[in-house]
């Protein structure tokens, strides 16, 4: 399998604190790659570095061989990096318009943008709610707006930041297949999740971060039996990692 | 040559007052996270208080600090409680409107009560100077500088060594964590606004012996204070002090060699240049520059 994204020695310091330190990994085209780790491990910071909202101190981020690290976020988006945010804050406009916002980069007229936006809303099953304001929707639905918005940028790689967090079990069951469906439509997925069961169920590989560093990488089974991962989560002194 | 040294010294001394006013703003902005567009009006009100105390009771401006400072402290507390606290959770724009409105009200109340005339305090030492190595130094400016230096030092030790001071700094660092640690945030907001206001007021009192007061005198002070905070860095006392002196010198030099009428043009120029070349603040450690939006 070829690599869509290759991250090498990526480092970001806040003051004296290393939020992400020398992280290297690759994302294979067409896979669902999970990213887990305790709170403050640097997962969201890593997403911010890849999507360009934060500038990295060192290291390279290559998408299909092209360097991203010095590019502004909107260029990275155009190159194929899409993302959602942990805290959902839909724009203060209708669901349809929310999805139209990024589409304007590809289609210049409102009419074309509207048609395209409808297609995407159908995919995430929000087409019936297109004219509603996001504030009237449930959290699960608002999370799907986030996904729809990100899909509207036509991403090659989609970074999903806790799209399942805060949902009740039936909502999780409803949103989970969506992730697989998005992947099957040809989008590679890197996603952060705290719900371990859901994560293990759909990811092919899992990355584990702790205190800014990447401490494990492998299939869900490999990772859950890894001694370093267990200590990172349980907070015990590891013999040697 | 002698002229330029003379100009720089006089600018440096004035810069002390700017630093004082700016540190008041820095504290309010850092703790309460509000852009107080009425900050210059605090200076204006203090200047008028000083003037009236002198006019009616013949009180010396320096002596009047014992009345003006507590009054202005309470005034600051009152503003925080009545104007700012009700809109604490509103958007940043709403906070701007409220403080712009406050500035409009204070300026025009001053116009109604005191008329538009320029008022000055007549003191025997107003024009007196001392000569030092061929440089003439104005006595009230010298007093102002050292008073500013002393009170800033005092604030520094208060923030560094007392429990309340540490709590204030904790809020500047991180509002949420401070809350979680059980710091009574609302009371500290009141305190910070009060202290910030008193510091600006001290700046106003110290200005009175050598300058005049009129209703719109405060506008440039708001501007200066913000530029100084941006240059000096949020939460950085040392940075704010140095930036205050810097602006004082630039104003004096620009006013002498370019045109006194273009003072504000010079500030704005510095502001723009600072944003472009060194967004994290010239002296600051970069903290707080993200608050300003400079990343």
């Amino acid at each position, binding site marked *: 399998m070829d690599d869509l994204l290759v991250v090498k020695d990526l480092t970001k310091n806040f003051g004296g604190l290393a939020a992400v330190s020398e992280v290297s990994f690759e994302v294979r085209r067409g896979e669902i790659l999970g990213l887990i780790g305790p709170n403050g491990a640097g997962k969201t910071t890593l997403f911010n570095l890849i*999507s*360009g*909202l934060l500038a990295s101190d060192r290291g390279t981020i290559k998408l299909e061989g092209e360097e991203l690290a010095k590019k502004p*976020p*909107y260029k990275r*988006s155009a190159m194929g990096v*899409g993302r959602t*945010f942990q805290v959902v*804050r*839909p*724009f*203060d*406009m209708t669901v349809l*318009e929310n999805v139209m*916002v*990024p589409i*304007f*980069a590809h289609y210049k007229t*409102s009419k074309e943008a509207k048609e395209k936006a409808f297609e995407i809303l159908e995919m995430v099953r929000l087409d019936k709610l297109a004219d509603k304001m996001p504030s009237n929707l449930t959290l699960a639905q608002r999370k799907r707006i986030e996904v729809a918005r*990100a899909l509207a*940028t036509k991403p090659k790689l989609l970074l999903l930041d806790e799209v399942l967090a805060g949902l009740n079990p039936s909502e999780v069951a409803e949103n989970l297949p969506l992730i697989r469906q998005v992947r099957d439509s040809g989008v590679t997925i890197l996603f952060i999740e705290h719900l371990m069961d859901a994560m293990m169920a759909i990811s092919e590989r899992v990355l584990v971060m702790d205190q800014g560093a990447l401490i494990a990488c492998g299939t869900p089974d490999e990772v859950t039996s890894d001694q370093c991962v267990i200590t990172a989560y349980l907070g015990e002194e590891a013999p040697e990692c | 040559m002698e002229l330029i040294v003379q100009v720089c010294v006089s600018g440096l001394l004035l810069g002390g007052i700017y630093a004082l006013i700016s540190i008041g703003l820095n504290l309010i902005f850092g703790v309460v996270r509000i*852009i107080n*567009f009425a900050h210059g009006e605090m200076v204006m009100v203090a200047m008028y208080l000083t003037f009236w105390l002198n006019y009616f009771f013949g009180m010396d401006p320096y002596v009047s600090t014992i009345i003006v400072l507590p009054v202005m402290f309470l005034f600051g507390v009152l503003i925080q409680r009545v104007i700012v606290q*009700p*809109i604490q959770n509103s*958007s*940043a*724009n*709403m*906070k*701007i*409107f*409220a403080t*712009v*409105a*406050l500035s*409009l*009200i204070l*300026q025009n109340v001053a*116009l*109604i009560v005191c008329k*538009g005339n320029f008022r000055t305090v007549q003191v025997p030492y107003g024009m007196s100077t001392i000569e030092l190595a061929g440089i003439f130094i104005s006595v009230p400016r010298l007093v102002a500088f050292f008073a500013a230096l002393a009170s800033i030092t005092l604030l520094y030790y208060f923030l560094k060594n007392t429990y309340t001071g540490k709590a204030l700094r904790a809020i500047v660092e991180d509002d949420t964590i401070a809350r979680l640690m059980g710091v009574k945030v609302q009371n500290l907001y009141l305190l910070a606004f009060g202290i910030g206001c008193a510091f600006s007021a001290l700046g106003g009192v110290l200005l009175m012996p050598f300058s005049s007061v009129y209703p719109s005198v405060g*506008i440039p002070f708001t*501007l200066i204070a*913000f530029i100084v905070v941006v240059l000096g860095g949020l939460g950085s006392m040392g940075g704010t002090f140095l930036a205050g002196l810097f602006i004082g010198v630039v104003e004096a030099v620009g006013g002498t060699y370019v045109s006194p009428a*273009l*003072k*504000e*043009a010079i*500030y*704005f120029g510095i*502001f*723009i240049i600072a*944003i*472009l070349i060194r*967004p994290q603040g010239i002296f600051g450690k970069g903290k707080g520059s993200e*608050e*300003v*939006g*400079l990343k």
Partner: protein
Amino acid sequence: MRTNKLIIATAILMLGLLVVPVFFTSTFILHMFTLVFFYIALTAAWNIPAFGGKFSLGHAAFFGLGGYTAAILYVKCGISPYIGMFAGTFVAMLGGVILSFPLVRLKGPFFTLASIAFAEVLRMVAVDWRSLTNGSVGINIPFKPGWLNLTFTSGMPFYYIAMGLAIAVILLSWWIRSSSLGYHLRAAAADEDAAKALGINTAKSHFLGLMWSSGLTGLIGVLYVFYNYVLEPGSGFSMDRFSLQPAMNGIIGGMGTIWGPVIGAIIMTPLGEFLRFYLGTIQQGLNFVVYGLMLIAVVNFVPGGIVSLMEPWFKKKKSGDSSAADN
């Protein structure tokens, strides 16, 4: 049905406005209408950066730049006011380019501060640069009536000019708001980071918004000067009248919406003139104290402006319509 009714209502309103000068020959009433139109245009132009959440308190800068450019060209070089309109718009946009540095780099409140400073600086320059601007004495437009000189003996032509201007700026701002630029600005206002991550060059969007806004404000400045005959730094770059007033209209009407600025200008302009004449003569400055108190009240009780109060009413009507359609 509903759109038909709306079109008919608009047509009646337009016709009504068109014949106002025929029936009301009083200079005062004509002046008041003209002023309202000017303020609608100004507020709608001010409102464009506000789509993106950027709130300027320095639009007098663009107003003054436009006005001074045209006035200087006309009075000192004898250049036609019609060319002056283009020149004034262009110079105002150059001012916009300068203000775009803080616009793009600074967060909202700090941009607001920079905008105040910018307008104040230009006022000082206008006072200081006597050879060009006549300093605080100002520039007088000589009274030579005729369409060529954009100077008239009656108030009627300017009534129509200002009305056309107001309609044009409303339509433009409506068009901008529903174009890609408008969506990008509104997205940036709601969540700048999310907008960036969705591929929007937010800096460019804010810049373009300010270009439209500054250019239009400059053009309004040009026309206002020829309406008013006199231009001096205190009026052309007036903080109260051309920076604060449009902002106030926008806030009270509803910032970032299409109709907010219109409603704000319609209510605030006559009220402002009334307060200036009655309270202002009783006691100079009293009108501004009232203004300040009103602003604080709006911030506390109706933060979305008057438009937000009318919204439930609109919504009800709309949902009523759609349910009727369902049946």
